[in-house]
């Protein structure tokens, strides 16, 4: 049906106005907007979508597998890849924590409908500052002080990268989606510039660091990062839910005009919230570098700025639910590396395909959360709408 109508529009010689007038094929159902939905129904719908998406992915992986694996292996390897050894479990939690960091950086902005696609750039600037502080100042000052300097500059850089688009959005209403997106590429370019300016010999890559490395509490130096971002997530929940700032953010997000009329300074809220966003993104960058003293590259943020968008949206912009969504995405990413080797896929893009498929399933399930399909009753049978109308009429009488 849909295909047919689409084709019609591609044929310009046909008079398009007729299509609305012609007696069309009637669908056996119609769509009604749900005013509200029971929580259990919502959870059920999301669960079905997730399970459906994973089943679909497992089937597809099994079909294209070079080693003749079956769909059940997919789930086995997914668990094996994420929980198989203590190291894998720690890495899974580390990945979850970093994703949480990226997501809580984005969430306040999203709540006020500010589409910050610049998470990657903000994180990368944090990485760059942390790295360059350690690169130039390492050994010249005590490590504790160095860590503080690294932290402060990363946060400042994250703020700067978020503040530029925020100021233009607040003052001129500049489109923030594309502005922040472009800032990603500018950040990557700045990193490449410094790489070319500083690293003159050898591999042409930033070396790993010797100074300014965070103390590691466990064998895989993951625990500190995990702790910090888990706590921050809870704090973000409290901030958004119970503080005046959080309230203002949600009013601005719901309706710009309402915010204006009740006397909220929208510009101030936009700028303040983006400063917060940038600060957390910068922090994520700091942890990426200072956790192990990793070398810097233009892809250091590992696309978390975009993944963070998906996880915070999946969680319905609720920081507590983000524990689930970030864990789930981290679980998929970690698990897919195992599935990949086991199923004989030579390249890493399979993970993207699977995650993309699951995104599609979850995104499309929002339709069933927001709308209801009502089947046209057989003649005589009454639909919900009919009954409602009938009740109203009775009430009037």
């Amino acid at each position: 049906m849909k295909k047919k109508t689409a084709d019609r529009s591609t044929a310009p010689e046909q008079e398009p106005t007729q299509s609305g007038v012609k007696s069309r094929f009637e669908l056996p159902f119609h769509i009604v907007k749900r005013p509200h939905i029971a929580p259990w129904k919502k959870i059920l719908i999301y669960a079905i979508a997730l399970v459906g998406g994973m089943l679909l992915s497992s089937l597809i992986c099994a079909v294209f597998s070079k080693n003749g694996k079956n769909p059940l292996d997919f789930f086995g390897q997914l668990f094996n890849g994420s929980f198989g050894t203590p190291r894998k479990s720690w890495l899974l939690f580390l990945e979850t924590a970093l994703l949480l960091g990226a997501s809580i950086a984005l969430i306040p902005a999203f709540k006020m409908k500010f589409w910050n696609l610049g998470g990657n750039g903000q994180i990368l600037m944090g990485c760059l500052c942390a790295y360059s502080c350690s690169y130039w100042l390492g050994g010249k000052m005590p490590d504790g002080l160095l860590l503080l300097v690294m932290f402060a500059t990363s946060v400042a850089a994250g703020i700067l990268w978020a503040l530029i688009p925020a100021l233009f959005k607040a003052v001129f209403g500049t489109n923030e989606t594309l502005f922040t997106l472009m800032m990603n590429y500018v950040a990557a370019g700045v990193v490449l510039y410094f790489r070319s300016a500083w690293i003159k010999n050898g591999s042409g890559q930033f070396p790993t660091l010797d100074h300014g490395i965070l103390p590691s509490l466990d064998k895989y130096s993951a625990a500190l990062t995990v702790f910090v971002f888990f706590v921050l997530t809870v704090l973000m929940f409290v901030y958004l839910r119970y503080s005046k700032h959080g309230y203002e953010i949600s009013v601005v997000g719901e309706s710009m005009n309402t915010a204006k009329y009740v006397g909220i300074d929208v510009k101030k809220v936009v700028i303040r919230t983006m400063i917060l966003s940038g600060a957390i993104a910068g922090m994520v960058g700091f942890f990426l570098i200072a956790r192990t003293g990793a070398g810097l590259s233009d892809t250091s943020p590992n696309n978390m700025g975009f993944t963070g968008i998906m996880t915070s949206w999946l969680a319905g912009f609720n920081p507590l639910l983000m524990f689930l969504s970030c864990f789930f995405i981290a679980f998929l990413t970690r698990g897919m590396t195992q599935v990949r080797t086991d199923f004989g896929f030579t390249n890493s893009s399979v993970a993207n395909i699977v995650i993309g498929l699951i995104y599609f399933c979850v995104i499309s399930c929002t339709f069933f959360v927001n709308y209801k399909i009502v089947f046209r009753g057989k003649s005589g049978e009454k639909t919900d709408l009919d009954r409602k109308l009938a009740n109203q009429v009775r009430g009037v009488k």
Partner: protein
Amino acid sequence: MLVTFLIGAISLGTVLLYGCMGETLMEKSGHLNLGIPGIMCMGTAGGCLGIELYLKGLADPAAANWFLLILLSILFSILFSVSAGLIYGFLTVTLRCNQNITGLAITTFGSGLAQFVMDTYVTRKGFGAAGKLISRGFVNDPNANGVLRVFFSHGFFVYFAIILAVIFTFVLNRTRVGLHLRSVGENPATADADGVNVTAYKYGSILIGSAVAGFGGLFYIMDYLKGSWENASTIEAFGWLAIALVIFALWKPNYSIFGSILFGGLSIAAFVLKGSSTQKELLKLLPYIITVLVLVFTSIRKKRENQPPASLGLSYFREDR
């Protein structure tokens, strides 16, 4: 040198032009599609797969027929990019899901699938020869007159893009179909009341737009790079630039011809100008910084005719009011 630069600018600009035209068409129907990078990747993978299948059937890749090569690559490219567009369309038009989120998911999926197809099923045997054939223009002698070379040394896809841009401009501004499409993007409820089939127009523009955007990636691999392939992320970067170019061109396909050539020039400026490799890294930032400046200027000027379609990014549900 100027001639080489101009040829390069027009050539690279064509990649952006395809992406930009596709996105413009979708935005005219009220759909901000952040999946363009993914759709361009899908189009690339499809087109290359088509060429691979064709070349496989030949004993000697050099004996490939120009017409069949173009036709097959276009058909397969459309097959792939339109299926990505169909997913986007179904999710955003029929299921009325969030357009930004759906677009980002399409980008993740599309670039992943393209990478997978290119690495697994496309051996690129004979692609060098095929690339040369596809990029063959009217004037192929490198010693010919500079002006002639700038205008006539390009392959089929460059002229095809410009013709498409002219057709799109005409259809959008001078025909009833274009009027209806614009009205759907501005105010779907009004268009609906006027008897315009909103769903059909949205699907139509999304599917045609996807097909056109997909050619961009195909052109980049087969014509600009003459058949070599690294990874999907380069094409993704072009996709994002193409989306920004839509704003630069003020939602007008005819402006986008010049905009894309300008952006193409900026992108290759780093390779043409003299300077140390460090300075060149800064030059590579130019297209992005210019885009930001353009965004800022258009937002400051706020001319009424230069605004995005009014219902851009919003889903249309007839019973809403």
